[in-house]
Each structure stands twice: as C-alpha cells, then as structure tokens.
C-alpha cells in the first residue's frame, strides 16, 4: 500500500476542513485512506519552527509522496529536506517568487503543487476595507514577520495605500499572544479598520481574530472565510477547499506514477468575498449595495 507523508503546520482540529478537502481530492483519483493508501501524519501544532525537523522525519520514513499543505513555510521546509522525494505543496503565495518552483508550467525538480491567490489579493483586501470606510485616512495592517511572504505583501499594500491615498499602520504578530496587543494598539492609534495579511498562522486562528475584532469593535478583513463564519466582518481570499482538494488530486496522480515535472503548478483562480452583515450591524457599519452584490456569500 502506498504511503503519503502529510506534513501539517497545525493541529488536526484546526486542519480538519482542509484535510477533508484533501481526502476528497485523493478519492477523485481512487485513493481512500486505510483501503488503498496509508497516510503518515506529522503535526507541527502551530509551531512552524518544528516543520524542518518533521519534514526530515517524514522523508526519512519510506513515504511515496510528501504532501506539504498550508503555506509557503511548509513547502519550503519540505523542499529543503529532500531533492528526490516528490513533494506536493499547497500554499497561498507565488511559488515562483518564493523559489519553490522554477516556473508554473514546468515546476522542475521534485516538487509541484497548488497555489491559491490569497497572497496576491492582499491589496484587494485593503481596497475593500477602503470601500467600506471611504473617509478613513489610516488603516491598520497586521503581518507575520516569520512568513516568507510578509515583505512582499507589505510592499504591495504600501503601494496600494498610496494609490488609494491612505496611510498604513503596520503591526506585527507571530504568536497568538501578540494578537490582543494589536487590537488595543489599533484602538489607540485610531486606525479605522484592520487588514490582515495572508498568512496561514492567521488563517488558522480566524476564530480568535474574529472574537478579538468584535471585542475591540474593529472592522477587519482577512483571507479566510473562517473569519466571517466565526463572526468577523469580511474575508477575501482563495478557496481553500478547492486548493486542498487539488493538492489531493496531484498527490493521487503522483501515486499513480506521474512525474512532478509533468504536473504544472495549479493556481486556484477562484477568489471569494464573504461578508457577515450581522457583524457589520454590530459594528454599526453600512455596507454599500455594490459591495454586497459583488460578494460570493453574504452572512445575514
């Protein structure tokens, strides 16, 4: 029975919905865990620093393919460990820019995968927040300094802010403990709204962020739909269900014998806007009809 090594940056609880999508993808190719494929899991439990060690552990085990979902950090950790073991990644950033693959159509080497447009659309989140708060001169941005995409996102956000004619309050957080100070800082600095950059650490802690945002009455937008689902205001980002499902398909195709260099990197072009009107009401904000009409999902 072939073995899939599954390198996960989070805990099984936080990753459940993604894992489900991954299993669906494997199932499309005809693999069902326990029946004709075994999955060897490694859980980093949110401690991203552990990823290289876990990746090395998986590679040392005789797995047929390493699946590295949940962000550029996971992909890079896996890639750094092995140049022979086939790796299928799932991330939000641009894999070429991050040095994960050589090109989208010909990834090269032993690695390929799926990328959503979450990282690319960070400025779009700023635009949406600006549209919601057209008269706000200053908006807060939170980034994870440990994320490989943090700098590029901040750069794009900076130029977008310039275009929109607003100023940015840049805040950093790389642990859960740093979340609350951010919101108190926003309240102090009188930034009208918060744009959360694309980062898996943030995405997987959408519930926590939503709670804090509502507590501090801060209008916020993140990449993951988990945020509005948990009571947050808005989200704009790639469809993780699709990206994880496609990662599952690619893992299955590799188990069937296809080579990673024959499988171009897939971009999940679907970007979804989810708006929670209940949260807007609680925040006392009116959301324009054009914004609502453009939303893929509206929670009332």
């Amino acid at each position, binding site marked *: 029975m072939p073995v899939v090594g599954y390198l996960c940056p989070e805990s099984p609880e936080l990753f459940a919905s993604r894992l489900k999508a991954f299993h669906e993808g494997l199932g499309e190719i005809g693999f069902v865990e326990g029946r004709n494929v075994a999955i060897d899991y490694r859980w980093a439990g949110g401690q991203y620093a552990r990823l290289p060690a876990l990746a090395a552990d998986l590679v040392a085990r005789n797995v047929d393919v390493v699946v590295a979902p949940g962000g550029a950090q996971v992909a890079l950790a896996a890639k750094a460990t092995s140049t022979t073991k086939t790796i299928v990644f799932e991330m939000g950033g641009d894999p070429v820019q991050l040095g994960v693959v050589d090109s989208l159509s010909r990834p090269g080497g032993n690695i390929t995968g799926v990328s959503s447009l979450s990282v690319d659309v960070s400025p779009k989140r700023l635009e949406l927040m600006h549209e919601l708060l057209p008269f706000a001169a200053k908006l807060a941005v939170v980034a994870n300094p440990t994320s490989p995409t943090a700098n590029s996102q901040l750069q794009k956000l900076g130029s977008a802010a310039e275009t929109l004619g607003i100023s940015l309050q840049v805040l950093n957080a790389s642990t859960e403990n740093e979340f609350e100070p951010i919101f108190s800082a926003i309240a102090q600095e009188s930034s009208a709204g918060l744009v959360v950059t694309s980062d898996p650490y943030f995405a997987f802690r959408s519930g926590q962020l939503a709670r804090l945002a509502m507590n501090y009455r801060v209008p916020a937008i993140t990449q993951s739909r988990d945020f509005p689902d948990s009571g947050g205001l808005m989200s704009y980002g790639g469809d993780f269900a699709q990206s994880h499902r496609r990662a599952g398909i690619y893992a299955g195709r590799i188990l069937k014998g296809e080579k990673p260099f024959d499988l*171009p990197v897939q971009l999940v*072009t679907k970007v979804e806007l989810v708006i929670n009107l209940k949260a807007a009401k609680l925040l006392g904000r009116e959301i324009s009809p054009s914004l609502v009409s453009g939303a893929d999902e509206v929670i009332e």
Partner: protein
Amino acid sequence: MESVGGRPEQVPLQIWYCKVRNVQWTGSAGMIVRERFRGLFKKYLLVLFLAVTIPLAINGVIEAWFGYRDQRARLDQFLGLQATSAAAEIHDFIYGITNQLGWLVQLPWTDEPDERRRTEALRLFRQAPAIVSLTLIDNKGLERLYVSRIGLNRIEGRTDRSADPAIIGARSTRIWFSDVSYNRGSEPHLTVTVVGNRPSVGAVIAEVNLKLIWDVISAIKVGKTGLAFVLDRPGRLIAHPDISLVLRGSEEATSKPFRTIRDAIGPAGAGFATSQDVDGYAIAAGAAPVQGLDWTVLVEQPLSEAYAPIYAALWRTATLLAVSTMFAALLAYALAHRMTEPIRLLEKGTERIGAGSFDYRISIQTGDEFEHLANSFNKMAEGLALAQQHQERIAKLKRFLAPEVADLVDRAGDDSVLDGRRTEVVVVFCDLRGFTEFSAEVAPEEVISLLSEYYDALGRVITRFAATLISFSGDGLMVLVNAPVPVEEPTLRAVDLASAMQKSVQELIAGWRSRGYRVGFGVGLASGSATVGRIGYENRFDYTAIGPVVNLAARLCASAQDREILLNAEAAEGVRNKRPLEELGDRQIKGFGDAIPVFRMSLKTS
C-alpha cells in the same frame, strides 16, 4: 454340313472376362485401380469442400468489408456529431460570457461617475467566474471603470483606450476576440471586447481565464473513454480534461501531438482520422470548428473502443466462417464418402467377379446411376456364370465330340441327345500294325513322339468329318459316326473318314519308314444297330456304343492288313457304286458264329 460356329454375342463377353481376370491377376494393375479410387475420394472431398467454402468465404469477406465500411461511416457520423456538439458547448461557454458582457453596454455614458455600472460589473464577476477583469470604455474611448479580482480597481481612470486593438477590432464585428495568451506561461487567457449597438454606450473589455472551460470540456464524454479538447488557430491547447496539459499549452512539446491529430483530420468536418494520442495510443478523432472563434474542437476515442463493433463483427464473421468451414468439411467428407462408397463397392465387386466369383452380387441401393451400374455388373456376372457353365459343358463334350458337334449339342440346350438309345451307327476302329514290337525296341520318348504325330493326324481327320471319338488306347482308336448327332449318309462319311485316316497315317508311315521304323496301319469299319449313350460317374463321363457292330468293327480292324480298310456287308451296301470296294468273301470272325462277308477298300497308292 451344318454350321457349327459359336454364338456371336459370346465373344465380347469372353474377351471382357479375360480382361477382368488380367486386371485381377496383375498385382500392380490392381494397385493402380485402388490408388485411383483413393484419389477420387480426395478429389470429391476437395471439390465439395471448396464448393461450399469458397462461396462462404467470399460472402464472409464481402460481409466483413461492408460491415467495416458501415461501421466506419457510423463512427464518422458519431465523431462528427460529438465534435459538433462539443464545439457548440464551447461556443455556448464563450458566448454566454459575451451575452453577459452585453448587459454592460446598454446605456449611454454621461460624464458623471457611474456607480450602477460598477455594481453590475461586480455582480457579473460572481456570475461569470472565468472573467478575471472588466474594463468599461465610454463613447469617447476613455477608460471609465476597471474592476479586477486580483488587482486594484480603477474608477474613472479616463485613460484613452481608443487605439487599443481590442477596441479597434470590435468596432466592425461588435464582438472581438484576441488571440489566446498564456498568463505567466501557464493559464490560457482570452480578451473579449463587446461594443454596444450604438457608439454612445461604449464598449466592455473582459479578460477571460480559459482554464475554466475545464468544467465544460471535462463533462464531455465521447463514448466510454473518449474525450474532447480545444485548439486555437495556431494549434495550441486551450482546453483538455487533463488541466495539467492545458497549463503547459503554450509549450510546443505539449501542443504538438494535439496539432498532429488536427492535421491528420485536415480541414474540420472532413471526416474522422486515426492518429495517436499523447501517450502514443491509437485513436480515432473527429473535429468541428467553434463558430465565431478560430478554434477547433476535437473529439478522440481510443481506436480499440471506436473499432470495437468492427472487431466484434469481424470476429463474429470469422467464427461463423470457421464453424461453416468445419461443417463444410464434415459435409464434404460425408458426401465424398457417399459418392465413392458405391465406387468402392463396384471396385470390390468387380474384383470378386473378376476372381471368378460369378455368384457374387454388388449391392448398391442409391437409386441412381451407380445402382444401374451395379445392376449391369450383376447382369454381367450372371452372363459370365452362364458363359462359364457353357464353357465347362463344351469342354466336357469336346472330349468325345467334335467341337462343332459339341457346340451343336450345347446349343440344343439339353443333354438328351446323349441319353441312351438304340440307333444305326457306323463304328470305325483303327490301329497300327507292328507297333507293340516296335515300341519295345525304341526309346519311350520316341514312342510318345510318334504317337503324338499319329494322333495329331487322326484328330484332324476326325474333326474334319465331325465324327464322335469314343476312345483311344495305345495305338488303337474308336470313332462313331451318326451318334449322338445323326448325319446324312453316315456310311459314306465313315468310309471317307477311314480313307482320310489311311491317307494321313500312310504319309506319316512313309516318313517313319525312312527312319527305319517298320509299322503299318489298318482300319475296320462296321455299320449296324448299336446302343449308344453316356456312361461314367461324377464328372467323368464318356459317350459310348455297345453292340455286335462294335465288336465286328474291332475284329475287322484286327484282321485288316496295312493300308487296308475292311467293311462289313451293311457298310459296303451303304457305299455301293459310290466308292470302289473289293469283295473278299466270307470270313470267319472271332466271336461271330458264322463266317460273314467282308469287303475291302484299299488305299490308292497314287
């Protein structure tokens, strides 16, 4: 003298009979006959087999050929239909987008910012996921709105786009499509421009991610495992159920095999072609153009699947042919057997008949010429049996009858002439004088040689006069005239017979004398009443005469000198004035009480 020749119809029978016996006796000839019949079976078998098999095979081949053509035509139709339907779906996908774009170019532009259009554009994003970005151009060719899923929107940018090829291109056709471009070398994109029905409503330019045709193309199934794909005008892959191929569509190596398929078909709609798919498997492919775009939709089906009905039909035909051939072989065997069996029976029958089993009958009940032939053979065998009986009887009769007489007796059909009766006969006895003494002195071979010459000479005379040879012993001989078959003037015939005997034998004696042998020859002849008939046992029969006249003739012979023929009075009376006789007066004859008159006829020395 009556004619005593054999019956004419008996001659051919006899000849045929000899031929048959020859065939049967000659071993090699028999082998040839058998070989020929074995060859005949083979010939019949072959001819009958071919007579059934060749039409079957021709029929099978023709059927297979037409089946193949029909199936190809059906496949052509099927693939053509599939391609057309797939092309229609691709067309619907693209024109679904252009129709929706049409709603954005309904109302004339004003100089005021238009919030409503932005709302509509965002709503369109939700409805058409393939649209990446939208640009609305007003009647002056200025960009009024740009909305994107990824990049920042631009509202009232007012840059002049009137020179944009997308705008220029759409002016004449209302709907304009760019060439396909591959975003970052991977995702195929298409720019679509739609202008309104009047200049004041401006135009809309949409960036469309063609990757999303996947939803349409992957849902198209051609047969069981066939698929459809789309190529643009230069032959690059735009859509395929395997998205990873599409994402490499800009690469020559990826698109080339697909282009090869397109080229194999030639101008779209020219019927299906066989080619190879990416993995090198043989396929059947059809094509159809997408209306309004310079694209080609191709449908392919593995050849094994496409030709499955053809193979099934061919297999069916082959099986049927094989079964029919086997059946034909059995039938041919049975028929050939049925045809050669009577010949074999005839062969066996003729051999048996030839071997002399004339009572053998060939039994063939086929109701045809063979039965007639068998009956003919049987009749012939019957005839042969009769002929043989006749031959045997003749052979027996000839032992004591002249051949002509024997034939005559045989022709009479019964042996009643040989029955015992009392009749007037002339009995002739003859023997050599001094032969007993002579035989004691000479070597036995010489004796037998002389006797052979002697009987040879006598035999010819007896045959000539159609006399009945009764017996011979040593150098003596008894001949009967007028029995069993009566003749005219028996006495005269007997006297002439005796004279001829004397003449023949005397010629011999002359020769012998020159060799130093001193023998003479005398004949006794008596005419009178005697009892004649057949005597003997089992198959050994003789015809004989009993009575004083026989004894008298024997005595007369005994008393005859060399060159003498002695006759009794009755015989002499029979030839009086016809042949020169000399009366010798009465003589005492042994066994006869009184002396009886004896006559002599001497052989003329001349």
